[in-house]
């Protein structure tokens, strides 16, 4: 009984497997032939393309099927096979599919097959495929046009050869069509074969032959081109002139024939009756030419009706490069009409160079509103500091002349703001700062003024000095941040306005009563190099005696005693392992009074060091200790702990503070700085309770 069940199961499995096996090629072809059976055709469309060359060959006869559903499906499957084998197939499979497609265009093939073959050949034909079969089709009235189009798309050297072969038996209209196809190929050895057509063909064929040969860029064709264009019929005139223009382009592009090419452009420009061709010659003079083309183009524009070529001329002018070309364009400007002037100003703005500065400035003041507007718009785009001066003059002039504020001035102000932003983006901080300064002075609205102040803050130029003085005089210190004021003052000093700069710094220093303000000022000063004088001016203790490192464990906090602190002697020596540690003096050149203890003590971890200083004050009294450290910090003043912070942190100015009372005369400061891992740093300053620096001297 058990064995019977096993046999039954086996039979059922086999039956199920048979019912799920892949359909055969013939089954799928039958699906295609089923015509209007949607699901079966869909299956065939999906599965036949991956059957490769065999499926392709099976589709060939189906193309002739009287049912459109069958022939249409066969064509789609053929396309998909080509795609699939092209994408996934090997060389052999691809070759077999190509052979199938070539079989569609043999003489014995049906019309439908030929039609399909000519459409599909460009996808399978390679450089190696001989194309005589297509060359033969070029001689058949009914097939020559699709065969020509096919060869043009195949675009191999053999295709070019077949097209040239076709010329022999072709009538004039088809010769012209063939020559147009030939013109789409890279030049090859066929050129010599086409040369006779330049002289023996009808004018239209000569024109087409010229166009086909033009791509060789052979200057020897020039006399032919001249003759053909002179004798051309109205119908083929454009072909002829286009051929000559293409010849000039090819001569210019291949190099070594620059002069003949330029001469050809000039000759075409003078003689071609079509503005399109003239425009092409102008474009060539721009793309390949030099400054000598500028007056030539200008002469053409000055001719009656020449204005229509202005767009082409402007494109050409934009293509020209080099100082010589810029000078030629600048020389052209005064003689140009208003429309051209406006266009040129646009070019001057987009391709700004010093040669254009004067013309743009002049244009910005021009009596013609259109020119004025174009020049100012161009100046805005230049991102040049010279443009700032032009806008400054415009806005100041309006102010001096007492002009009513008007939309044009509003536009000028807007353009200047845009210019300032562009200068900043271009990395010209000075130019941007100057621009924002002019904006600040000319602004009519608070929002604009605030934007300008932001700009001045980001780009503090010496010229902004007066603005700062104005703000200080007005007590308006919130308008301009400390770092901007310090930057302006320092720039003023650097630019020769030393006394004014120092006075401004003096004014600023008394305002440095908060950590934020001091921090901002220190940031600017650090950017200008070492400055211990500034550190002293903000109350930093810039000279300490240090000793360390002493091994220390994080868990110990401030409990261990290392050097008998707080009672210490600078003459003391401490033994750590086999090493004797002594106090050593160190000074900070940093603008914020910062000490890098890696430099002073050494690069260690899990250690502490001590810093000791003596200061002398004239009066004593209430004061603040402001200190920053990396990592923890304990501070004694005159032997008493005033600050203690066992912490893991990086250094910042004034991280900890403590109120203390200093005595008149000498006071001692002792600091213990812990080092866990990473950086190790320390800085301390003394202020009065209101934040102003506490005056003291360092005792050696």
């Amino acid at each position, binding site marked *: 009984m058990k064995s019977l069940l096993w046999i039954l199961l086996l039979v059922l499995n086999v039956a199920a497997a048979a019912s799920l096996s892949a359909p055969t090629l013939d089954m799928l072809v039958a699906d295609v032939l089923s015509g209007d059976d949607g699901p079966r055709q869909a299956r065939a469309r999906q599965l036949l393309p991956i059957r490769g060359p065999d499926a392709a060959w099976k589709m060939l006869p189906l193309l002739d099927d009287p049912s459109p559903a069958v022939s249409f499906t066969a064509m789609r499957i053929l396309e998909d096979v080509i795609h699939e084998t092209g994408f996934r197939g090997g060389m052999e499979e691809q070759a077999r599919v190509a052979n199938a497609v070539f079989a569609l265009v043999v003489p014995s093939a049906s019309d439908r097959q030929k039609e399909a073959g000519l459409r599909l050949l460009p996808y399978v034909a390679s450089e190696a495929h001989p194309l005589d079969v297509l060359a033969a089709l070029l001689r058949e009235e009914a097939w020559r046009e699709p065969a020509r189009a096919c060869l043009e798309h195949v675009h191999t050297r053999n295709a070019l050869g077949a097209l040239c072969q076709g010329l022999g038996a072709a009538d004039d209209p088809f010769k012209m069509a063939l020559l147009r196809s030939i013109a789409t190929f890279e030049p090859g050895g066929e050129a010599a074969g086409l040369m006779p057509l330049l002289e023996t063909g009808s004018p239209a064929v000569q024109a087409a032959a010229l166009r086909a040969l033009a791509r060789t860029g052979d200057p020897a064709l020039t006399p032919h081109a001249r003759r053909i264009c002179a004798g051309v019929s109205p119908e083929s005139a454009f072909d002829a002139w286009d051929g000559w223009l293409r010849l000039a382009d090819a001569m210019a592009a291949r*190099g070594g024939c620059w002069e003949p090419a330029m001469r050809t452009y000039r000759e075409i420009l003078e003689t071609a009756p079509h503005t399109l061709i003239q425009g092409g010659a102008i474009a060539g003079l721009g793309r390949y030419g030099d400054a000598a083309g500028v007056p030539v183009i200008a002469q053409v524009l000055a001719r009656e009706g020449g204005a229509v070529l202005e767009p082409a001329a402007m494109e050409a002018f934009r293509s020209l490069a*080099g100082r010589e070309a810029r000078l030629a364009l600048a020389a052209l400007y005064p003689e140009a009409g208003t429309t051209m002037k406006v266009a040129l100003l646009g070019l001057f703005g987009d391709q700004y160079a010093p040669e254009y500065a004067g013309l743009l400035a002049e244009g910005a003041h021009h009596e013609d509103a259109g020119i004025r507007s174009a020049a100012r718009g161009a100046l805005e785009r230049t991102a040049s500091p010279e443009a700032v001066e032009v806008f400054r003059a415009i806005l100041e002039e309006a102010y001096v002349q007492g002009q009513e504020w008007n939309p044009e001035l509003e536009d000028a102000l807007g353009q200047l703001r845009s210019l300032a932003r562009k200068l900043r983006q271009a990395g010209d901080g000075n130019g941007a700062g100057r621009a924002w300064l002019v904006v600040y002075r000319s602004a009519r609205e608070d929002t604009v003024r605030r934007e300008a102040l932001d700009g001045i803050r980001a780009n503090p130029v010496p010229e902004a000095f007066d603005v700062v003085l104005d703000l200080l005089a007005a007590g308006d210190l919130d308008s301009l941040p400390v770092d901007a004021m310090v930057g302006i003052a320092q720039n003023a000093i650097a630019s020769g306005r030393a006394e004014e700069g120092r006075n401004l710094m003096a004014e600023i220093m008394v305002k440095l009563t908060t950590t934020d303000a001091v921090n901002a000022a220190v940031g600017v000063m650090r950017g200008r190099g070492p400055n211990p004088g500034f550190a002293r001016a903000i109350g930093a203790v810039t000279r300490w005696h240090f000793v360390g490192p002493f091994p220390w464990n994080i868990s110990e906090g401030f409990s261990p005693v290392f050097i008998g602190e707080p009672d210490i002697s600078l003459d003391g020596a401490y033994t750590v392992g086999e090493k004797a540690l002594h106090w050593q003096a160190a000074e900070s050149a940093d603008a914020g009074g910062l000490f890098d203890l890696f430099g002073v003590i050494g690069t260690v971890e899990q250690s502490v060091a001590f810093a000791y200083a003596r200061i002398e004050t004239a009066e004593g009294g209430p004061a603040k200790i402001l200190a920053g450290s990396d990592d923890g910090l304990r501070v004694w003043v005159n032997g008493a702990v005033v600050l203690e912070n066992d912490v893991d942190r990086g250094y910042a100015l004034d991280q900890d503070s403590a109120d203390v009372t200093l005595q008149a005369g000498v006071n001692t400061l002792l600091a213990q700085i812990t080092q866990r891992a990473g950086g190790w740093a320390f800085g301390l300053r003394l202020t009065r309770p209101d934040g102003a620096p506490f005056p003291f001297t360092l005792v050696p």
Partner: protein
Amino acid sequence: MSRIMLCSVFFCTVALSDPAVLQFEKSRIGTATFEAASIFDVNNDGVKDLFSGGFWYPGPDFKTAHKVAEIRYEDTYYDDFSNIPVDVNGDGLLDIATGGWWGLTFQWRENPGGTGEWATHNVAEVGNIERTCACDFDNDGHEDFIPVVNPVQVFKLVRDETGKGTGKFQQYTLTAGNGGHGFGCGDVNGDGRNDILLAGGWLEAPEDPYKLDAWQWHAEFDLGSASLPILVYDVNKDGMNDLIYGAAHDYGLWWLEQSRGEEGKRTWTRHDIEKDRSQFHDLQLVDLDNDGALELVTGKRYYGHNGHDPGANEPLGLYYYKIENGTFTRFTIDYGPADKASGAGIYFWVDDVDGNGWKDILAPGKEGLYLFLNKGFAAP
């Protein structure tokens, strides 16, 4: 009909008004970007070959590149600022005399006679060499070699009794004069001797050029950062040699007219040839159009200072100038951006490489090595 006739009249006008112009067939040789090149028969097979820096290309098709040597490369420069063919060791094969800025050394590379690599021989360390120039220092009919440094160093190939090179050079130093960027060699004062031109003046050759302290310095002009070479040529046919020189690292190409002022004192007057094109580092006088008169051939040295020279990023060009009555008329051979056009490099060469009777140009440079085959006059 009337339009056609009008056109025909105009064509004649155009054709007649423009002077004849040479046409060239341009081709890129290899992919290398050395700045020096020359044309000579490298392998003695009777066919001229192309040589540039670290490779040579056998003629007549120049399709194959044979490695010469690994050339030191520093900061976009190959340490190889000249390729002067000369049989240094007398083995019948032309070797190469060279030198460069970075290596500080006048060298020659030995032609192995096959396709193997060439050995480089250091002759002497002389300092940063702007270019090595060939000049018949002692008027003996053999070119001597001057790697341009300050002061002037002359290297004379020691030859045996048959005139063959021995592989050795004799070095001479001229301490007079104030060198700089620029060097030339020619008869300035019409005494038949080759004088030496420097940017700040000229050294007058004595009767015996080996009396080194007898060379007399005339600080008569200041040519700035001048080309190598400064050409000595009677531009205006007045019987006195003038100078032609370019700004090697700036805008300008000029000729300096030699005249006599009061009491016969020599004076120099500068005339512009080009004002707004830049970096004319190498110049040659050659009869390019076979009319019996010399033309000035020159072009831009692309990125001579890595883009820092005035006009560095402006179009490149290769030109020849017809010289008539002191007037230079430019004919452009090639012109355009660096990815399409060719300049002249620091050491270009002119020779009829294809034997068609017209001299061709081999133009090296950082933009690539280009051969311009001269095809004679273009159809009008």
